[in-house]
């Protein structure tokens, strides 16, 4: 416990933007064939440093086959609400779930990120026993501690009961139990986030474990059996208050990105693919008159490609779907970044008018058919995937792997880990930095990125920007 609030806690998004920029990035590494243990790479991102863009430390886990994907901090700016009683926590521990093993690692990043080490390991049995959930995924710190979403229920293949969110104590990291009291019709899970002062949570749907663990199931996708609904919840009452179906053809509703400024009662949702036309889409949800609403506000078309450029999975379609796999909203809620993992494009939308996103910038790199190299000449396998924006909105980092078995289906030639960075111009426009390219150890793929001092998909705020 600190004597003063952690200097990386900020009352408003504006204060978070004005704080010193990031010095380190944390990126999770996964061994796709489970031949090596997964790891956490600590990368120097301080411009001018002699080890700029290099891995300066690696935390290697003691187990194999965890499959790292998303992860998060034990505490963030949300601790500055007197309601939570968490004002003196430190932003110190990274909570890293193994999505395949259901094991969770707690990594201590102090006293120095270059000496980060495992603090605690929570074995899968504890999670199964206390929550009835499996396959932990997204991590957020909030009013009741650490919230972790899961993709599976209980049982060997995770289909015995629905997946959901569970709570972990933010000081002892003890698993406390299920979050939901009334889940309504929710049966699938993926991402979640919230508006804290307005007291609501938003959750999305991917699929059940048999639909993703051994690869995408084309028959299930074409018969619209992946998730296509969004759920709105009363956060403190832990109750599902509204579910909206996007239409069954909108398959895989993944990342939920609410506006950071809590006075703004809207947010975005990315949908991977429309099975009627292979489009990817961006949806805007908002609350009005006590009810939630959502509409499709941007679409991204597929790109035709010759059969020989396509993996077997896509040959029948003669086109590459954009595959919107991740979206991220800048801290000032002005720009939405959309990763098109299939076509190999990072799009930047101006969302000043949230229900009318305007394409403001774009960077091409990788892609199933295009295979655009990095400006430094190196090949970028896969496509832009997990994206993270610096708090000041000037730098956008991303990696290239989606998920072990899916990588192999869409990019059969392999997806060696890569992490790049693009500079964003204040009024829109995006350009890859030719001097930022992280070399990862052979045999590893790179997934989610976290920035020290917080980033745009970590911190939630209890006070508006003024």
């Amino acid at each position, binding site marked *: 416990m600190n004597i003063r609030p952690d200097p990386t806690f900020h009352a408003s998004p504006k204060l978070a933007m004005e704080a010193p920029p990031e010095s380190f990035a944390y990126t999770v590494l996964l061994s796709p064939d489970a031949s090596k243990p997964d790891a956490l790479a600590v990368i120097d991102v301080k411009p001018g440093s002699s080890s700029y863009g290099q891995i300066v430390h690696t935390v290697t886990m003691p187990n194999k086959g965890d499959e790292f994907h998303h992860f998060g901090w034990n505490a963030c700016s949300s601790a500055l609400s007197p309601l939570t009683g968490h004002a003196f926590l430190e932003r110190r521990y990274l909570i890293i779930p193994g999505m395949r093993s259901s094991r969770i690692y707690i990594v201590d990043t102090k006293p120095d990120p270059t000496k980060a080490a495992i603090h605690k390991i929570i074995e899968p049995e504890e999670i199964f026993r206390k929550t009835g959930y499996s396959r932990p995924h997204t991590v957020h710190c909030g009013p009741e*501690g650490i919230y972790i979403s899961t993709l599976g229920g209980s049982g060997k293949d995770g289909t015995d009961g629905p997946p959901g969110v569970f709570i972990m104590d933010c000081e002892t990291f003890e698993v406390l139990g299920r979050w939901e009291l009334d889940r309504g019709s929710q049966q699938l899970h993926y991402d979640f986030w919230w508006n804290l002062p307005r007291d609501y949570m938003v959750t999305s749907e991917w699929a059940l474990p048999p639909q993703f663990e051994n690869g995408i199931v084309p028959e299930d996708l074409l018969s619209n059996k992946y998730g296509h609904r969004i759920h709105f919840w009363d956060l403190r009452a832990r109750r599902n208050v509204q579910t909206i179906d996007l239409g069954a053809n909108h398959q895989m509703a993944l990342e939920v990105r609410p506006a950071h400024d809590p006075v703004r009662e809207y947010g975005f949702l990315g949908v991977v693919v429309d099975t009627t036309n292979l489009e990817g889409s961006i949806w805007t949800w908002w609350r009005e008159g006590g009810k939630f609403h959502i509409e499709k506000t941007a679409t991204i078309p597929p790109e035709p490609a010759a059969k020989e450029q396509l993996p077997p999975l896509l040959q029948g379609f003669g086109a590459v779907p954009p595959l919107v796999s991740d979206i991220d909203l800048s801290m000032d809620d002005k720009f939405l970044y959309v990763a098109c993992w299939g076509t190999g494009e990072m799009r930047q939308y101006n969302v000043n008018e949230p229900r009318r996103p305007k394409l403001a910038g774009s960077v091409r790199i990788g892609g199933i058919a295009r295979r655009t190299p990095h400006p430094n000449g190196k090949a970028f396998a896969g496509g832009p995937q997990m994206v993270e924006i610096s708090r000041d909105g000037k730098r956008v980092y991303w990696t290239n792997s989606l998920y072990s078995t899916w990588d192999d289906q869409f990019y059969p030639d392999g997806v060696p880990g890569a992490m790049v960075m693009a500079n964003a111009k204040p009024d829109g426009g995006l350009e890859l930095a030719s001097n930022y390219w992280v070399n990862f150890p052979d045999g590893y793929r790179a997934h989610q990125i976290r920035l020290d001092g917080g980033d745009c998909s970590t911190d939630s705020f209890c006070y508006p920007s003024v």
Partner: protein
Amino acid sequence: MSAADWTPVWLWLAVIASGLYHGVNPGMGWPLAVSAGLMERSPRALVAALGPLTAGHLLAMLLVLLPFALLVAIVEWQRTIQIGASVLVVAFGLFRLANRRHPRVLARISPAQLGLWSFAVALAHGAALMLVPIYLGLCRQAELDGGHAAAGTLINANLGMAVLVATVHAIAMVAAGGVCAWLAYRYLGLQFISQSWFNLDTTWAVSLILVGAVALVFNLS
């Protein structure tokens, strides 16, 4: 004036000082008033949020003080009750010192229920308990001044004193918290929230122990 004459003055100052202390502590809620003002874009919303925060605090004070108002009327047990109350405050301080966890149930209260939250947080952290020895001291002073009275009169006097102590404390609290909220809202900006926040858990626990211990010494002497 003699030393004895000064005693009630010091006790009332203690009531006010504890109110100011609770008021300026961000953990007791003034940042929530700032948030309300900014969310509604209206200084009125800030003032409106101070209402339930104060009411909750006041109710918590009354809930703890009123049973003692009835108990101390039983004149032959008065000393026992005063010693018991002092021991209780010391014990709670020791408990807070040993157990730093914030009760998780507080995080279940909706941000819309500021009054309930303020009530619960004042009880949970022993803010109300801290007033008990001061209050009992004031009751004793009043009794010394007024001489022995019938039990019914005494109860009425004690109840009146409890309401007065709780009200004075709550007014001091809302004045201090309101000034902090207004300063942050109008002049100092949101940085003031984290700048003014100190981890007083240890100080708080020690204050409880001290107040209880001083009262105990007075009562035993």
